[in-house]
Structure formats: C-alpha cells, structure tokens
C-alpha cells in the first residue's frame, strides 16, 4: 500500500513510474458491517424502545382523544365551573383543581423545610455509617405504600391535628384562610368541623413527598465544590456559615427542582387523599374546615358510576392533571440538570 501511493505521488517527477504497477490494491474500507448478533441486538433493543414509546404515547393520545368529547361540550367553562354533573352538561374542574392545589401547597409547607433540613443533615452533618443509614431510610420511606400513609392519617393523625387546627382557627382567625365558619359567618369550634380537612390531607401528602425531595436536594448539596467549602472554612467560617455561603447557593437549583418534583407527586397523589378528605364540589378557602377535593380523588370517586360521556369528562380532568404534572416535572428536571452542569464546570 505505501509503495503504490509513493509511486503515484512521485509519478510526475519520476519518468520510470510507468514501469511500477499502479492501483493494484484498492483502499480498504474502514466501515465494517455489523455482525449478525449485533444486528439482532440492535433491532431487539430498537423494538423495545419502540414498544415503550408506543405504550406511553398510547396513554397520552388515548387520553386526549377520549377527553375531546367532554372538552368539546364544556368548552372553556371546564376550567371555571365548580360543579361536577356530566349528565346535565354542567361540569368543570375549578373546585377540584383548587382543592388539589391547596392540598399540594400545604404539603409543600410541611415537606420543604423537612426535606431541606434532612438533606443538609445527610450531606453536611452526618458522617460515615450514620449517613449511609439515613440515605437508606429516606429510600425506604419512598417505598412505603400510600395506603399505609392513608391509614395512619385517618386513624392517628386526624385525632391529633384537630386540637391544633382548632387552636389556630381561634387565635389566627384574622387570617382569612385560617377561619372556620358556617354559612352564616359564625365561628365553628366543635371537633366535627375540623375533620377530613385539606390540612390533614396536606400533612400526610407532605410526609409522602419528602423522600423524593430529599434525595434530589441531597445530591445537589453534595456536589457543592470542595474548594469553595474549604475556602470558607479557611476564612474562619462556622459550619452553618459555610452552608449558607457555599452549599445553599450551589444547591439552589436542587432545592427548586426537588421541590417541584415533589409538587408533581403531591398533585397526583390519590389514595391517601381519597381516604382522608370528605369530597365537596365548591371552592373552600378555609383549609382547616371539613371538606375539600382533588382531581385524582374525583376520578376514584366517580369512575364506576360514569356513563360513556361521564368517563370522557373524567378523562378530561385526568388529562388536565397530567398536563400540569408534566409541565412541573419537565421544568424541575431542566432546572436540576442545569444546576448540576453549573456545579460541575466549577
């Protein structure tokens, strides 16, 4: 090979080039054909990916297709109507969506401080075996079935939260949403007015989403660069000073992203909420008072009795819920991913 190229290159200057054989060998192709096993592997893996996408697109497409019946009838009032009566064509998710968001926000108030504290405890304070144990416990908590959390909420937490809720409603009734009143504006104090409230559901859901948030935040915190940490210590900072100056700013993306991932899960939580709340179909601003609702609890409540059109209306509600969690999840993962790459580049 080198011999022939040399000959062809020097053919212009050397007159005796014609005596040498030119282009006897063709250039070897560097592109190799994949072997049979590789082709089988590739096609099987490709098929698996295709099936996965097909299943998941089927869910989305089917949901939107079936929901379009109900959405076509209800139009924009689907987002503003509070009542849910698909048989009489008046139905909307204003009340249930409001309840869902209330419960999720209360859950965030419970979960975020706990998650940030636990994540900092694991990444900054605990050492060695204790840290490994805590990480395992967080993972374990994520695997506890939601029906078990629901049981705990109904049979234990409810009775213990009622006195606290009554105390808050007595002393903080100048804040509108802590007020508990009947229809005539009278303040209620009996225990039955405080059962099955958004507050209790929110606390239980909050405990359920803490593990998700903690693991995202812990990962973000532990990626805070060691150089900056040691610089802070070398300048005489205390541990909390270092956390405030280095870990929290670097982990901000993780905190926001983890919070939003937890929010997505809190919005979709069904069975614990369904066990605790007593469903109503009006917007209830008083979070301590009995009665709230959520989209997923609505679906669990009404799927059996629904006619074909009622099912389509439930599909529409499910679709709205799915779209909201989808947007939140994508935003969250892009924030987490961006913060991660930022931490790595330093």
């Amino acid at each position, binding site marked *: 090979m080198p011999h022939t190229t040399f000959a062809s290159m020097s053919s212009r200057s050397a007159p005796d080039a014609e005596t040498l054989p030119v282009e006897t060998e063709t250039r070897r192709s560097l592109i190799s054909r994949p*072997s049979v096993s*590789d082709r089988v*592997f590739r096609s*099987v*893996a*490709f098929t*698996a*990916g295709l099936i*996965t*996408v097909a*299943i*998941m*697109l089927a*869910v989305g497409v*089917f*949901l939107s297709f079936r929901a379009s019946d109900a959405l076509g009838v209800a139009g924009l009032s689907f987002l503003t109507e509070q009542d849910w009566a698909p048989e009489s064509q008046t139905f909307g998710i204003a009340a249930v969506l409001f309840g869902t968001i209330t419960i999720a926000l209360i859950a965030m108030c419970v979960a975020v401080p*706990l998650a940030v*504290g*636990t994540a900092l*405890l694991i990444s900054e*304070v*605990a050492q060695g075996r204790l840290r490994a144990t*805590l990480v395992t*416990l967080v993972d374990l*908590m994520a*695997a*506890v*079935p939601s*029906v*078990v959390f629901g*049981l*705990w909420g*109904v*049979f234990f937490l409810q009775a*213990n*939260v009622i*006195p*606290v809720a009554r105390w808050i409603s007595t002393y903080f009734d100048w804040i509108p949403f802590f007020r508990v009143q009947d229809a005539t504006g009278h303040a209620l104090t009996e225990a039955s007015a405080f059962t099955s409230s958004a507050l209790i559901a929110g606390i239980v859901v909050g*405990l359920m989403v*803490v593990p998700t948030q903690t693991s995202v935040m812990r990962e973000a915190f532990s990626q805070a660069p060691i150089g900056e940490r040691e610089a802070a210590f070398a300048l005489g900072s*205390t*541990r*909390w*000073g270092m*956390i405030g100056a280095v870990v929290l700013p670097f982990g901000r993306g993780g905190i926001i992203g983890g919070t939003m991932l937890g929010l*997505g899960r809190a919005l*979709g939580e069904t*069975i614990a909420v369904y066990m605790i709340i007593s469903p109503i179909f009006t917007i209830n601003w008083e979070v301590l008072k009995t009665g709230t609702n959520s989209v*997923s609890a609505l*679906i*669990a409540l009404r*799927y059996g009795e629904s006619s074909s059109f009622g*099912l389509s209306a439930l*599909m529409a509600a*499910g679709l709205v*819920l*799915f779209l909201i*969690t*989808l947007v939140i*999840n994508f935003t969250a993962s892009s924030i987490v991913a961006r913060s991660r790459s930022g931490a790595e580049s330093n």
Partner: protein
Amino acid sequence: MTILLDSIGMDSPDPSDTIDPQTHTTTIPSSAGIPVGPRRRVRGARLDDRFNVLGAAAAGIAVAVLLFGWFTPLSGGVGWLLVAYLTFIGFYALLVSFASDWQEVKDRVMAVLLASAGVLLFGALVFVVAFTLVRGQEALPHLNFFTQSMELAGPLDGLDVGGIVHAILGTLMQISMALAVTIPLGIMTALFLNEVGGKFARFVRTISDAMTALPSIVAGLFVYSAIIVLITHQRSGFAAAMAITVMMLPIVIRASDIVLRLVAGNLREAAYALGSTRWRTVWHVVLPTARPGLATAVILGTARGIGETSPVLLTSGVTAVVNWNPFEGPMISLPLQVFDFIKSPEPNMIARGFGSAAVLILLVLALFAIARVIGGKGPGQLGRRQQQRVVAASARDLQRITVNGVRRARLHVPPSLPPSDLNAKETSS
C-alpha cells in the same frame, strides 16, 4: 496484575512460589520507626456542649410543664411538645451565647434544627410503620388470616374466620405479570438508550421521563377505559397488571438507565479494543458490571408497584374469593384489600385492614432488604467472595503467563546460549 494482587490484600493466594517477588511486586515503605503521636479528636463534643443541650432540654420541659396546667389553661400533647421545643431552642441559644459569639450561636442552633428535621422525619417513618404493625397485631396471630379467603366470613364474624389469602395471591399474580413485561422491556429499553443511542433514543428518554409524571390514577383510568370498557368488558387481574406495568415501566427504565450510565466507559472500550462485538460487550461486560444495580432498580420498582392502590382500584375489582384466572373476573390485591376493609365501620374489619397493611408493609420491607443486600455496592465494586474469585483468577493467569512463557522460552532457546540469557527472557515475559 501483581499490583492488583497486592492492593487487594492478605487473603490472596501467595504467588511468590512461582515467581520472583523482587521483580514483580510494588513495595510499600514500612512505617516502623517513624513516631506517630496520639490521634487528635476533632469531632467529639466538649463537656460544655453536652451540658448546654441537657440544660436547655431540662429548661424546655420544665417551662412546658409549668405552662400546661399550672400557670395557663393550655392543653394537648402536640401543643406541649411545640412549647417545650421552642423553649428548648431559646434556652440553648442563650446558653451557647454565654461562651461564644453570634456566628457560633447561629451555627449551634442551626445544627439543632437540622438534627430535629431528621429526627422528625425518621420518627414519622418509624411511627407510620410501627403504628401499622402494632394495630395489625390483632389480626396477625390468627393463622386462618393467612390460609382462608373472605368467602365465608360475614361482616360481623370474628377474626378467627376469614383471611386475606386471596389478596396475597392476587398481589403475587399481578406483580409477576407486571414484572414479566417490565423487566425485559425496561432493561432492553435502557440498553437501547445507553448502548445504541441516536436521535430516536433521545426521544425515548424524553418520553419515558415524561411518563414518570403520570399520576397513578390516570394510568388506572387509561387501562379502565382502553382495555376494560373497550375490549374485555370485565375487570381482571390482567388489566390491573397492565396498569401496574404502565406505572412501573418508567421507574425501571429511569433507574436502569442511571445504573448503565455508571458502567465505566473504559471497560466498554477495552472490550471493543479486544475486538468484541457490541452484543458481546453488552452481554459479557456491561450487564455483569451493572447486575447489582439493575437488580436494585427492578426490586425498588417492584416495591413501588406492589403498593400501588389507585390504578388497581379502577382495574382489578373487589372480590372475596381466590381467583386463579387472571383474565376473567375480579382479582383483589393487598393494598386494595386494605382500602376495602377500612371502608367498613366494623372494628373487626378495620383490624383485618390493619393486618393486611402490616402484611403489605412487611412485604415491602423484605423487598427493600433484599435490594440492599444485592445492590448496596456500586457497579464494579465486588463483594468478598467475588474479590477472592477475581484474585484467584488473576493469580492463575499470572502463573499461566509466566510459567508457560518460561517453558516456551526454554523450548525456543538454543542449548548453546548461556543461562543468563534465559533469565533475561524470563523477566521480560
């Protein structure tokens, strides 16, 4: 190879009887004779610190006791705890501030707050689990709880009649069907994302990430209206398994994707450099390296799938009898059975509900323990047994290479050469 033997340590078979240790081992300088002072403790707490914590705790409890019942008409356990805790924080800050500056006070108080977040969270976890197990003790000692179904038990019957064997069997059947789809499909998809790649793989990853956001009730609603209403016209264990699959698949894909990504690239490149095909690399290098992680991913996905209630609620239906046919008739599972039991106002039914929840949570705990035992290590990290096997294999390789090399050298060396030349060949081989 000898470096590997040395770094792994004492339990390796000593190869020095076959080769010369002087030429083949890395020597670590001995630390004998170098004086090492006593190690300073940099982490322990001083006596003052302990006294501050204990003193502040005592003060907090005392103030709360005084306020509740003696000085003011406050009552309630939660309020007592809250008052005691807040007073404890205040007194602790005060005690620390006697000896240190503002920065240190902040540091100490924040350390206490972080620790209490952890204590609160794990206290809640332990409490939720223990509460279920304790309340379940009423039903669990009855052996018939595990051997009978609810077929012959009426709502008023005592706990010595009826059980949840139908729910346990239903859970096992549904989760096996779901796993039979999820494991091959999930792991193949994860392999596709990592080993094949390309534009379509990125699309698959985006879609499966999006699917982790799917609320479980919506997955149930999808299966209900797509399979039950349109095709089978009846609830079945199969439909429930499909709903669980839709929930589990993205979890398993995502977890396996992360595990496969952690397989070191140089292992793959080494395999390619040795001329192996893509499939052989996957089968002999990537999958064995990632095996513990993949097992963990699958088991954690299973633990999540077993606990799913809401998709099963819509798709499997409630029954009181054992149903062996997953394609026909309702087939209840454990979480749904819990949900169904506690809807009843009867105390015996609620006791049964807690018993079923205890069984469910023990199942999840067992799965979790298995996952920890298998997957406590990262990819490529080996257990004791595996390490010994690797060491033995590399010792065998070394012996094969050196001994055979010497033999080959002896065969090829002409007898007229002096023996010193033979030695030189031996060391270089």
